[in-house]
């Protein structure tokens, strides 16, 4: 038994190391004074200095974050209502069809989605800029929000809604005081997933972004094509820390929430 545990642990550590080595390799060379990643010369913050003086890149960084926040927020609102509508469907067949359509969007390759958005926008004569990217990010984030919120709705005890009505709540109060708070954890995971989806999307953005607007992933891609510059390493390091912070916040909020109410069933007899 002990042996088995040991093997499992070695396996796990090996996998994790394998996954993280490239990132740390990148971070490591962001502190090298050389021009490329062949050899670590000596320690320097020079690349960070150029990075923070590169106004174009900083603007793109901020815009990428703005795009992520805006698109995830809007997608969460639309997706949550969508999930509520799906769970309220009476006929099982309708429910399943809608869910299937939702899942098709989840699994279709980004390239296809990106290309179709491009065709769509040009056909409608919509210019390719921040707006077009925002619209497409919202669109591909909605299905994931629906998928995160729906399980919460399904396991919700509907007598909670009767209870609220019994205590005098009107439809809006039932919605805002009971329904939304009980599915909040699902909404929150949906928001977080949408945020990461938007942040790390390359393919869709690549299609629908025009001259005036670019996101970090597209920008890094076009820079990397002209030969790797260690400024990109510095940028990646900053991004990595930013994502670490996001995950930390997410973790903090979810564990705090679950400490407040460490129960499995939503509503009903809380054990």
């Amino acid at each position, binding site marked *: 038994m002990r042996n088995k545990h040991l093997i499992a642990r070695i396996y796990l550590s090996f996998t994790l190391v394998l996954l993280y080595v490239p990132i740390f390799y990148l971070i490591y060379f962001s502190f090298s004074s050389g021009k490329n990643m062949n050899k670590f010369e000596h320690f320097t913050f020079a690349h960070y200095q150029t990075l923070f003086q590169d106004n174009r890149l900083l603007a793109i960084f901020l815009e990428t974050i703005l795009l992520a926040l805006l698109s995830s927020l809007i997608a969460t609102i639309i997706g949550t209502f969508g999930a509520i509508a799906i769970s309220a469907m009476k006929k099982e067949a309708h429910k399943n069809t809608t869910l299937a359509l939702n899942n098709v969007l989840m699994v279709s390759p980004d390239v296809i989605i990106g290309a179709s958005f491009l065709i769509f926008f040009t056909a409608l004569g919509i210019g390719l800029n921040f707006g077009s990217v925002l619209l497409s990010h919202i669109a591909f984030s909605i299905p994931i929000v629906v998928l995160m919120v729906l399980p919460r709705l399904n396991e919700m005890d509907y007598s909670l809604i009767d209870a609220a009505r019994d205590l005098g709540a009107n439809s809006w109060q039932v919605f805002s005081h009971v329904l939304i708070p*009980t599915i909040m954890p699902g909404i929150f995971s949906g928001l977080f997933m949408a945020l990461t989806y938007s942040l790390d999307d390359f393919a869709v953005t690549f299609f629908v972004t025009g001259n005036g607007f670019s996101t970090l992933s597209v920008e890094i891609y076009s820079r990397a094509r002209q030969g790797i510059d260690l400024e990109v390493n510095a940028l990646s390091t900053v991004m990595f820390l930013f994502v670490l912070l996001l995950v930390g916040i997410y973790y903090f909020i979810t564990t705090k929430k679950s400490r407040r*109410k460490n129960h499995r069933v939503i509503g009903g007899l809380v054990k």
Partner: protein
Amino acid sequence: MDIIKLKHITKQYDDGFVALKNINLTIESGKFYSLLGPSGSGKSTILRIIAGFSQPSSGQVFFDGKDITDLDAAKRHINTVFQNYALFPHLNVFENVAFGLKIKKQPMDKIKPAVKEALHMVRLDGYANREISELSGGQQQRVAIARAIVNEPKVLLLDESLSALDKRLRKDMQFELRAIQKKLGITFIFVTHDQEEALSMSDEIFVLNDGMIQQSGSPVAIYDEPVNDFVARFIGDSNILSGRMIKDYEVEFANNKFKCADGGIKPNEKVEVVIRPEDLDIVAPEKGNIVVTAQTQLFLGDHFEIKAVDANENEWLIHSTNGVKLGERVGLFFDPEDIHVMRLNESQEDFDARIEKYEGDENEN
């Protein structure tokens, strides 16, 4: 004074299932009522129609003389304690109890003392800041009651509220519920499938089966004079034997003729006879109305439960404070008043009318 009246209520669910068939009942204010019936008999459906969560397919609901059939649940002066409590998991005890008052936009300086008072009533002083998940089942039950009574409803509905509790706690809560009802002086409608619970707590019981009210009345009336064999079997243990009416106040069963207290039935009509196990006294064989042989015997703490058969292979259930020797022939003695005669398929209206009639006759003589 009548507070709730259901008139000709039927309920057919979307899938075509008819859960209630022509329910008529009257609830007076200030009393403790039970809806008693096996699982699936339609108890919760009646409660949901009274509360306004579900609409009857036909019929009317009256509250204080006004037709409230189409009134929204939020606007009825009725509150419910749900079967699984349905406490809001994202709110703590105080916020749960205060929910209804906050919705009604009461000022905080009114809400606070009201919540405190309600928590005191259910003996949960000092629990206001607890999370729901930190409470035991019994405590959650009390919060659910406090959350309902803080709104000062005229009628409180309780759906199988004690079923999830263990036996000890349940007994305690039965007493407490009764005490709370007395103190508040409001009407309680309590749903249960447990006949003992209904008998011990209620002023009035409605016995339900298959979406129909089988019998209504005081616990004593229902226990002593069940109108049909469903009620007789469902309420307590009983010996039910088929028999034949000889004439008024005389009935034949188990191959013997006995004096009884029932009349108003045609001579020679087939009937069923109910004798409660605790009304049977064990005596010497020659002194008994019937002679039986004891077969099994269980000691249940305060009495023995004895199963015996008579010469005609009828089984008899006897509750006795003293045990018997198994295989021994003993006599069973019962008074004419212990025999309750039921006509086959008699409705409660017919039953009541018949009793009225022959008791009237008796007075004339």
